[in-house]
C-alpha cells in the first residue's frame, strides 16, 4: 500500500469515527486539535474540537471552568506535540471533505487554481483573525463592558463562522442545524457569514486543493508547536535537485520545501503532513518524514516512478 492509499484509509476512518463514532459508543474527548465538530450532535459525535470547550470556558467567566480548560489545553497540546500536522492531513473531518471534493475535481479533469504569491501573503492574516475571534470575543461575552446586547448573541463566535459547523452536521444527515439564526441582528450576521464561509469552502475546495486549510486557525495553533513537534519533514540539501515537483504536488502550495538551501528542517507553518511531497520526490532520501528523529518515510526514485508511470 502506498502512502496516498494509506492516508485515504486513515482519513476516511477518522472521518467516520469522529462524525458517527458516538453511535457505536466511541468518544475520544473534547481536546482534539482538529475540526471534529460538536454540532454533529451528542449522539453521533466521536470526538470534539478543542476550540469548542475553549470558547465555552472563556465565556463562562467562572474560575472553575478556567482551571479545567487548562487541563484540557494540556492534553490538546500533548496531542499536537506528538502528532503535529498529522491531524490536518490524516485525521481532520473537514480535511476529508475537502480531499473528497478534490478527488471529484480530479476525476472531472478540472484544473486547480493557484493563487499568486502576493495574494497568498495577503490572505495569511485571515487565520489570525479567526484565532483572535475564538480567543477574544468569548472574553468580551464573559465580561461585557460595552455593548452587552451584542455580546450576548456572540456566544461561540468562531463556531458560528466555522465552515465545519455547517458542513459536518449536513453530511452527517442533520440539516436542521444548517440555517440562519434569526434571534437577533448579531446572530443573523454571524450565521449568514458562517454559511457564506461554508459555501466558499465547498466551492473553494472543488477548485483549489485544501482551500480552507490556508485560513484555518487550528493550523495556526499547531504551527505554534513547530519547534518541539515529534513529526517533522527533513530535506537533504545536496540530494535535492530543486526540481520543483514537491511544490507542484503540495496541496498547501508550500514553495519553501524546494527552495530551502540551508536548513535541514523543512516543516513549514502551513504544512499538513500529507507526505505528497515525499512520495513524489524523485531523489533517494532527499525528503524524509521523521518521528522523534527516526525516519518513518523517505523519498526514493523507484517509488517516484512507480507512482507516476501508473498514475
Amino acid at each position, binding site marked *: 500500500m502506498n502512502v496516498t492509499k494509506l492516508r485515504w484509509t486513515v482519513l476516511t476512518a477518522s472521518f467516520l469515527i469522529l462524525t458517527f463514532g458516538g453511535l457505536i459508543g466511541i468518544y475520544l474527548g473534547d481536546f482534539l486539535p482538529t475540526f471534529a465538530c460538536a454540532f454533529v450532535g451528542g449522539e453521533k459525535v466521536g470526538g470534539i474540537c478543542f476550540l469548542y470547550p475553549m470558547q465555552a470556558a472563556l465565556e463562562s467567566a467562572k474560575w472553575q471552568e478556567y482551571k479545567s480548560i487548562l487541563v484540557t489545553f494540556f492534553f490538546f497540546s500533548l496531542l499536537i506535540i506528538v502528532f503535529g500536522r498529522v491531524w490536518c492531513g490524516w485525521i481532520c473531518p473537514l480535511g476529508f471533505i475537502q480531499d473528497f471534493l478534490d478527488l471529484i475535481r*480530479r476525476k472531472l*479533469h*478540472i*484544473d*486547480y487554481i493557484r493563487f*499568486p*504569491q502576493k495574494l497568498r501573503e495577503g490572505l495569511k492574516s485571515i487565520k489570525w483573525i479567526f484565532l483572535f475571534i475564538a480567543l477574544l470575543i468569548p472574553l468580551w461575552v464573559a465580561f461585557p463592558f460595552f455593548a452587552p446586547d451584542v455580546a450576548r448573541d456572540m456566544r461561540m463566535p468562531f463556531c458560528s463562522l466555522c465552515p465545519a459547523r455547517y458542513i459536518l452536521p449536513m453530511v452527517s444527515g442533520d440539516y436542521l442545524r444548517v440555517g440562519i439564526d434569526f434571534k437577533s441582528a448579531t446572530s443573523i450576521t454571524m450565521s449568514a457569514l458562517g454559511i457564506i464561509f461554508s459555501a466558499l469552502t465547498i466551492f473553494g475546495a472543488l477548485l483549489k486543493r485544501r482551500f480552507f486549510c490556508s485560513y484555518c486557525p487550528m493550523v495556526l495553533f499547531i504551527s505554534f508547536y513547530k519547534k518541539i513537534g515529534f513529526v517533522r519533514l527533513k530535506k537533504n*540539501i*545536496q*540530494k*535535492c*535537485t*530543486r*526540481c*520543483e*515537483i514537491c*511544490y*507542484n*504536488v503540495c496541496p498547501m502550495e508550500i514553495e519553501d520545501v*524546494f*527552495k530551502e*538551501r540551508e536548513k535541514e528542517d523543512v516543516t513549514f507553518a502551513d504544512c499538513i503532513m500529507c507526505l*505528497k511531497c515525499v512520495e*513524489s520526490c*524523485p531523489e533517494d532520501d532527499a525528503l524524509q518524514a521523521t518521528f522523534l528523529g527516526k525516519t518513518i518515510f523517505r523519498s526514493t*526514485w523507484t517509488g*517516484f*516512478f512507480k*507512482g*507516476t*508511470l501508473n*498514475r
Partner: protein
Amino acid sequence: MDATKYHKNYQQLSPDIKQESTRQKRKEHFARGVARSVETVLAGLEGNPDLPKGLNYFINVMRDVFINSPGPNFLEAGADSRKIVGTYCMMIPEELIYAAGAIPVRLSGGSYEASCIGDELVPRDTCPVVKASIGFISLNFPSVYERCDVVIVPTTCDSKRKMGEELSKFKDVWMIEVPHIKETEGSRTRWLEQIYALKENLEKYTGRKIRRKNLDVSIKMIGQVWYQARRFYELRRLSPSVIFGQEAALVLNAYSYDTASSWTEALAELNNELAELCKKGCFIGNNDTPRILLAGSPSVFPNWKIPSLIEEMGAMIATEESCLGDRYFYDPVGTTEQTMKDMMAGLGSRYLMPCICPSFAPNEDRLYRLLQIAEDFEIDGIIYHVLKGCIIYDFELIRVEKIMKERGIAVLRIETDYNPEDVEQIRTRVEAFIEVLKVKKKKRGE
C-alpha cells in the same frame, strides 16, 4: 501570445551558397568528411571485444543518421509522415512535440567538419558547438536536417542566443526565452507562459490540437524514457563499472536522433543485459581504475576527442554531466493529475528548475549536483572540458575546483575545440593526471 518569436525565412540573404553547383560539391565533400569521422568513432567503439550486445542498436542509429542514406527509418516519407522539429539545448519539452504529432530531434552539433563550415558564418570566438550547429543547418545535411523545417532555440548562453538569429537564414526559428534567474515567481510564470505559447505554435504548425489526453499519453511515454535512463544511471554507479563511459555517452547521444519509443525499448534491453553482467560479476577494470567525471562543456557526438582519450589512457568515465547525456535524462516530469494545468506546470518545472546549465546565475544548484554525482559514482578525479569560446563553463570552474578540493577530488581543466590537432598535447596531460590518480587510489587501497 507573443512569447515565442517567429522568424521569417531569410535564405536569400545567405552568403556564398548562391551557386547551386559549388554548393552541391561542398555538400558532397562535407558528407564524406562527416562520414569518415563518424565511422572512426563508431569503429573505435566496436573495437571493444566485450562490447555489450545491446549497444549495436545505438551504433546503428548513429550510422543511419550520419552515414547511410536515406537516414533513419522515421525520416522515410510514407513510413511516417510526421513532421520533424529540431531543438537545441535541453529546455524544450519534447512531450509537447510528441503530443502535437511531431517528432523532436536534438540538433546540437559535434562534428569538426561542420564546425569548419560554421567558421565562415559566425565570429571567430564562437564556441565549436554553435559553429557546428550552424554548419549542419547551412548545408542541410544529413537528411534529418533536410526534413526539419522548424527549429526551436532557447536563449541560453550568448552564442546559442545569437545562433538563433543566424539560423533564421536557413530555417524557421522559434526563440524561447529562458529566464536566467530561475527562482523568482515572475520568471517562473513567464517561463510557463512561453511553454503555453510553444504549445500553441506547435498546434498551428502540425495542425493537431494538443489535448489533455494526447499530452497525458506523451508524458507517460517519455516517462518511460526517464525511467530507463535512470535505471541506466543507477547501473553505471557501480564501481568497478559495467560499461565504458564513452559507450554510455553514445547511448544517450543517440536519443537525439531517435524516436523515444524505439530508443527506450533498446535501452530497456541494454539495461537488462547490464544487470545480467553485474550479476555475473563481469566488470571492466578493477578497483584501482580511476573513476572520472567528465564535466564542463558537452562532448557532442561525434566529437569523441576527450572521452576516447580518457578511456584509452586507462581511466573510466563513470559519468559525464553533458546536456546531451546524463544531465538531460536525470530529472523526470512529475505530474500527479491528468489535468491540463497540472501537466503543463509539471513540464514547465522539469525543463527549467532542475536544469543546471551554467547559463543560469546564480547556479549553486550545479555545485550541489556535482557533489552528489561525485558521491554517487565514487569519483576520483574530474576532467573539466572547456570548449574554446564557452565562457560560462570556464567561469564556474573556479567554484567547482574549490568545492572539489575540499573533498580531495582533483580537477584537470582542458581547453580545446573540435580540431584534432592538439590531441597529442592533451594526451600527455591527461595521462599524467590519470597516473597520479592511479597511484593515489592504489595507496588508499593498501
